[in-house]
Each structure stands twice: as C-alpha cells, then as structure tokens.
C-alpha cells in the first residue's frame, strides 16, 4: 500500500535479468542504474537545497528571497547553474595548474562518493557495506585535501590562510564527530547503516532519545565539518575575502559550491540514519520519511547559519579540543555502561 519504490526496482531488476544477458552484464547494468539514480537524486537535492537556503534566509530576515525566476524563484538555481556554466573559467598564470585543476574535482567526488551507502528507504540503498559509517567518514576527509590543494595552488596569501584554517578545522572536528557516532555503534554492535536503522524500529528506541548528548555533539561537529555558520572560518568574508576559493571562477567554483551543499545533505542524512531512525515512520512511504527528516536537519543547520556570529579560529579549536572532545568521551563511557 505504501508506494514502496523498492518493489518497482525489483520489477525492473527481474525484467533485466530475464533478458538472458550474461550475469556480469546484468550486475553492471544494475550498478550503473543505481549510480545514475543516486547521481540524479544528488543533483536534484543540490538544486532544491540552494534555492531553499536562499528562500529560508530571506524569510528569516523578513525579505522574500528570489522571486523573479519562476513562481517564487524556483528556477533560480538553474539560472545560477547556467550562469556559472557559461562564465569564463579563469586559471591565473601564477597558479600550479594540475593541483589547481584537480582540487574541485576531488572535493565534489569525495562528498558524492559517500552517497553510496546511504539507506534511502526500505531496501532502497545503493549498497549495504558492512563498514558503512566508517566508509562515509573516511571518504569525506578527502575534502580536507582538496581545500589544502585549492589554498596552496592558488598562490594567493588569502587563499593559503583560508586553506590552512579549513584543514585545521575539519581535521580537529573529525574526532568528536566519530566519537559521538561510536556511542551509537556500541549500541547496535555493527557499522552497517542498514543494521543501525534496523535497530531503531520503534520511535522510543531512536538513538536521539537514547543518546541525546551524542546527537548534540554530532550536530555541532557536523556544522563545523561543512564549514557553515558559527564555524565558517575558511571563507570568513570579512577577514579573508572568500578564503580558499578566491581564484576559482566558472564551473570550478560551481563544483566547490555544489560540494558544500552535498556535504550539508550528507551530514544531515547520516544524522537521520544514526539518530532519527532512518526511514522508519508511520504512514508515509519510507523514502519520503528519510527525505523529510533529512530536510529537517538541514533546516536546523541553515537556521544556525542565519542566527549566530562566527567564532575566531583559536576559539573554535579550543571549543573542539577542550569542550566538545571531553564531552564526546563522557558520552562514549555512558553509552558503554548503558548498552553493556
């Protein structure tokens, strides 16, 4: 009854295998199909998120946000995309060309690769790695490398400062992030995302109720991971004039821009899977539950951005190492006792 997409996919899968193609070809097609679907889903989400953030920030500040392109400006992101696409992609002369060229690619690819093992709905996931959560955190640290590459290769003082700062920030917030997630893994005894979601059938055993401190630490560390508001030091416009992506323009800048929003959605999707019971929910189809919860977390993170001032670099580090980390350890110890 609940319009599950997974049954539809099973029908397509059976039809392909019934074509009598060799086994390896069938797997290949299925994998490419899954990848294509996730790619399409990711781009749709980016389009929606960019528009949504501009409308939300508008209404937070008592203005309307984009209104001119289509009804309430829903074509705005497409217009931005076209503009960035046809803009001249300037590569400054004094720039280390290869590193400069590959930095945005790595940034976008690493945050997109983590979409592979997100459980979008009931048996609706590209792959179910048994080391799901570890894979996601491992892949997303590539972003740090790309920021350093961008900062260093742009041969520009401000970009260098911005790159260094963002690398230091993401590396140091990686630690409380993983520790807060360990609390959940201790309870579910498994790294696989599907198993984690499986352990949260009923609402009362969602991990947000069993691990509230873990959820809070995760949320704070996640906003820091995506370089967004109170922690958006790398492109602190006032001090460093756009930080590491000063020299980028055209599609390269678009790649960084998209990577940021992909990261934002990824972080909230992982939060939903770990703490808000993934795709479990009463009436609506499972994938819709997953998207609604993810967009709620995205709303909270956007909400932070438009309310809080920015922390200074050393305060940000001290907050992480001297405040968030001990809290994460405490949370892990409590989780250890709780789920013996």
């Amino acid at each position: 009854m609940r319009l599950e997409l997974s049954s539809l996919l099973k029908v397509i899968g059976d039809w392909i295998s019934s074509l009598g193609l060799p086994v390896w070809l069938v797997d290949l097609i299925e994998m490419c199909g899954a990848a294509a679907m996730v790619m399409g889903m990711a781009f749709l989400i980016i389009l929606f998120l960019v528009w949504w953030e501009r409308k939300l920030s508008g209404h937070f500040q008592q203005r309307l946000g984009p209104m001119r392109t289509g009804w309430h400006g829903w074509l705005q992101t497409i217009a931005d995309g076209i503009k960035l696409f046809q803009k001249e992609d300037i590569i400054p002369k004094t720039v280390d060309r290869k590193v400069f060229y590959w930095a945005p690619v790595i940034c976008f690819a690493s945050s997109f690769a983590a979409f592979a093992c997100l459980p979008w709905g009931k048996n609706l996931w590209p792959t179910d790695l048994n080391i799901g959560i570890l894979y996601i955190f491992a892949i997303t640290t590539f972003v740090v490398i790309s920021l350093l590459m961008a900062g260093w290769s742009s041969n520009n003082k401000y970009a260098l400062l911005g790159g260094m700062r963002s690398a230091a920030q993401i590396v140091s917030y990686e630690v409380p992030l993983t520790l807060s997630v360990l609390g959940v893994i201790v309870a579910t005894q498994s790294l696989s995302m599907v198993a984690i979601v499986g352990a949260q059938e009923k609402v009362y055993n969602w991990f947000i109720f069993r691990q509230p401190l873990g959820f809070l630490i995760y949320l704070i560390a996640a906003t820091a991971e995506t370089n967004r508001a109170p922690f958006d030091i790398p492109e602190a416009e006032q001090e460093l004039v756009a930080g590491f992506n000063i020299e980028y323009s055209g599609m390269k800048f678009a790649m960084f821009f998209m990577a940021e929003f992909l990261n934002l959605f990824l972080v909230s999707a992982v939060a939903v899977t770990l703490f808000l019971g993934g795709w479990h929910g009463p009436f609506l189809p499972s994938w819709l539950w997953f998207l609604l919860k993810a967009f709620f977390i995205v709303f909270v993170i956007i909400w932070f951005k438009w309310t809080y001032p920015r922390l200074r670099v050393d305060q940000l580090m001290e907050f992480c190492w001297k405040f968030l980390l001990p809290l994460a350890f405490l949370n892990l110890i409590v989780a250890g006792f709780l789920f013996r």
Partner: protein
Amino acid sequence: MAYDLPVLSGIKNLLIGLWVTLRHLFSHAVTLQYPTERWPMPERSRGVVVLLSNKETGDLNCTACMLCAKACPCAAIMIERHRGDDKKWKIDSFSVDNSICCYCGLCEEACNFDAIKLTPKYEFSTYDKPSLTYDMHRLQELGRDVAYTPRVRKTPAAATPAMTATTEAGGASTPMAPRTATETPTNSSEKGGSA
C-alpha cells in the same frame, strides 16, 4: 578556554537567539518588489529638477532672474538670456546638468516665481553622461504634469529687471506645505503669502 562561560546560560541564550529568528521566519516580509510594487514617494521628496509653466497660457513661469543659478552650490544651472524690447529679460536657454546637480533644493527656495521645482521623479538614468544635461524643452515637458499651487501675491509682481542677489532663504518652498509668515523685504518683487 578563552572565555569561561557558565554553560547553561550560554545554551539558554543560544536558544533565545534561535527563537528570535524563528519568530521572524513567520512574520510578513517588509521588502517591496521594485518594478511591480513602487514606493509612494512623499510629495516633498527632491528628485529631478523641472520647470513649471502657467496652466492656461502654457509658457514658462521663469523670468530669467538668475536667482536659482546664483543659489546653486554646484553651478549646475546654466541660463542664457537677452534683454527684450520692453526692458524685461527674455530667456533663451535654460539647462540643468543632472550629473552635477546635488538635488539640494536651494534653487527651489531661491525662486520667487514658482518657476523651478524638484519633483519626486527619480527614474532618469541613462547610458551616456551628456544626455543628462536637460535643455529647456525637456525640463518644461517634465514639469507639465507637476501640480503646484502658485504663491498668493499681494500686488501683481512688477519684476523689475535688475534683480539684486536676493536668495530667499526661508519659508517653506513647496507650495503644499503650510508656509510661515516670513516677511522678507526684498527690494524687487513684492512677495508675501502668509500660512
């Protein structure tokens, strides 16, 4: 820690901040979508300078007395005139360079004959600077539809030609606002008008 803060009051204030922004999320937007919705300009707002003309006869009120040109701080008003046969000044050309004009309204206050006025019009941007210098006809066209109440005159103004520099500073300039009774004894034109 650079700032040792009681954590609880910190969290409380963070939440208060969130509540303020959320409250504004649902309040009505105050912005105006410009080309479609326009701001009703107050009638005193000082926009482009125009020359007013008599409703019936249609010719300019201006008697080429050069008071506005003297009063202008940026010398944006250029007037050429010649002495007509009946000893009165006739105006040849009157141009205002809108790229120099600073829209201060001193010319309007200096004019004794309601000839020049700043109207609430503001959309006159162009691509090239020379076209910002408006000549007499353009100023007159702009001023056609501008409503103004001519000043009450005690005796018909016998505007003697040699106008000494009398910048009439004082008294409300725009006709609509209540004029105060500032009797400014000027030797030339008789002007009064009490509120």
